[in-house]
């Protein structure tokens, strides 16, 4: 059975004007779990992450981290409460050095820890340590994604939100970051993963929800990873 919930969404609705992008969304992510969120473009996956993070106000419903209500709090206070979002498109500061990008990640740290503050990033991605003095914009796409994930991890969040982290990456780089997710889970960090690579996500995550048209349509387990037809059917369900 899953442990206590790290993240709970209850009846969340997000609107853009009069259009509902997410409707009556209820899901929970247990401590130390990876939960996947897949679905076609425009299904409301990114919107869900943005609503959790406070970037997009939720019109209705409850969002809780470790039992603490998050709705109507500012983005930076949610970051400081222990949620880190690796945004779509990575959003690293290309003009800054790798180290400066990581230092920015420390802004949301809730307390100081013994040892190298960048430890969580360097242990997972040693290349960041090697390139710490380089301009972030000069890194390859895969390395930039590693930097974006590392930057999120140095704040030592309870919950890591990932918005299509494999988008635009070479196959080898995709292997690298999926392997990293497993390692992040092993140290106890909870992950909510939004992805287009449905099969890999289903195989990795404890549970994967399929979001279609702003609503949860189906929940898949790791055993369904090889059932391509079931995944396709979930996408097409309407």
């Amino acid at each position, binding site marked *: 059975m899953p442990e206590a919930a790290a993240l709970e969404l209850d009846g969340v609705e997000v609107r853009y004007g009069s259009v509902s992008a997410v409707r009556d969304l209820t899901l929970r992510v247990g401590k130390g779990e990876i939960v996947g969120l897949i679905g076609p473009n425009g299904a409301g996956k990114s919107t869900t992450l943005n609503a959790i*993070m406070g*970037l997009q106000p939720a019109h209705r419903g409850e969002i809780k981290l470790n039992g603490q209500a998050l709705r109507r709090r*500012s*983005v*930076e206070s949610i*970051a*400081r409460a222990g949620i*880190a*979002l690796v*945004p779509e498109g990575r*959003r690293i*500061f290309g*003009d*800054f050095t790798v180290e*400066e990008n990581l*230092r*920015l*990640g420390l*802004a*949301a*740290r809730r307390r100081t820890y013994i040892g190298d503050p960048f430890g969580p990033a360097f242990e997972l991605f040693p290349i960041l340590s090697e390139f710490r003095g380089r301009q972030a914009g000069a890194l390859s796409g895969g390395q930039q994604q590693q930097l974006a994930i590392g*930057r999120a991890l140095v*704040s030592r969040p309870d919950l890591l939100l990932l918005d299509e982290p494999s988008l635009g990456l070479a196959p080898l780089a995709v292997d690298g970051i999926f392997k990293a997710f497993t390692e992040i889970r092993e140290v106890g960090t909870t992950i909510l993963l939004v992805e287009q690579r449905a099969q890999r996500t289903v195989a990795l995550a404890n549970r994967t929800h399929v979001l279609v048209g702003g609503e949860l349509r189906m929940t898949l387990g790791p055993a369904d990873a090889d059932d391509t037809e079931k995944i396709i059917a979930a996408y097409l369900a309407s």
Partner: protein
Amino acid sequence: MSVLASIDLQTLGDAFGLGAIYALMAVGIGLVFGVLRLVNFAYGQLIMAGAYTLAYTSGWPVAASIVSCFAVVVALSLAMDRVVFRPLRSSSPAVMLVTTFAIAFLLQAVALIIDLRDGQLGEVASSIAPLNQAVSVGGVDVRKVTFVAVGVALGALIALALVLTRTTIGLHTRAAASDFRTARLLGVRANRVIAFAVVVSGLLAGAVAVLLTVQNPFVQPDFALEDTIIVLVGVVVGGIDRLWTATLGGFAIGFVSVLVNAALPTDQTVFLPSVVYALVIVVLLLRPAGLFAWGRRAAMERV
């Protein structure tokens, strides 16, 4: 008569002096633009308020007078952010710009009311006027304030560059200027970064108030208004997108103004703004992203 022949060392000194003052104003405007995406047209009225403070404290010791000038300008700068900019932070840039026009006129009207209590328009800031005296350097007369202006500008720019590159608040401010949304996502506190930019911008306005008042001790409600318009133009010409290009733009337009003024025949200096703005139009036609924006994406691409 060629333009070059009219430039002597004295003119060059004046050009550096005004360039330095305009560079400080450009940094003050550019810093706030960086974090708020707001062109603060009311920046000149901050300087005007500082100048009036200097005038009204003329009887005080010079140091106390200057400290109170800084205090008034920084307090007014913070109040402007708190009362006006913060509630409008999510408004469109056009709304914010027009609002700063309104603040500018409001502050000028307030200054006029305060000024006219003695029945006369204008106040004289006499205590720091001695800085305007000339000293002879190798046979060339240079006003003391020129050295002070260049020194203050260099000192302030170096100090600011160090703060921006070496400290956490500096890193957070640069991040916010580059991508505010992502900076907040990482836990950078928006209000703290904005307050930092507003305070530094206010300190720079205070310094400019002192330097301008030395050169022009007769303070009126439209004090520094024309300078602000010229600097805003300079900032756009240099490239408002980046602090250092905006600063260079401010310096360049101050520098060029003095040179053009010297080159124009005495009876035609009324055409100074026309000549300067004509140059600006030419520059903007040739380099729409800004004079110093080499290899950068155009400022307008950024929303």
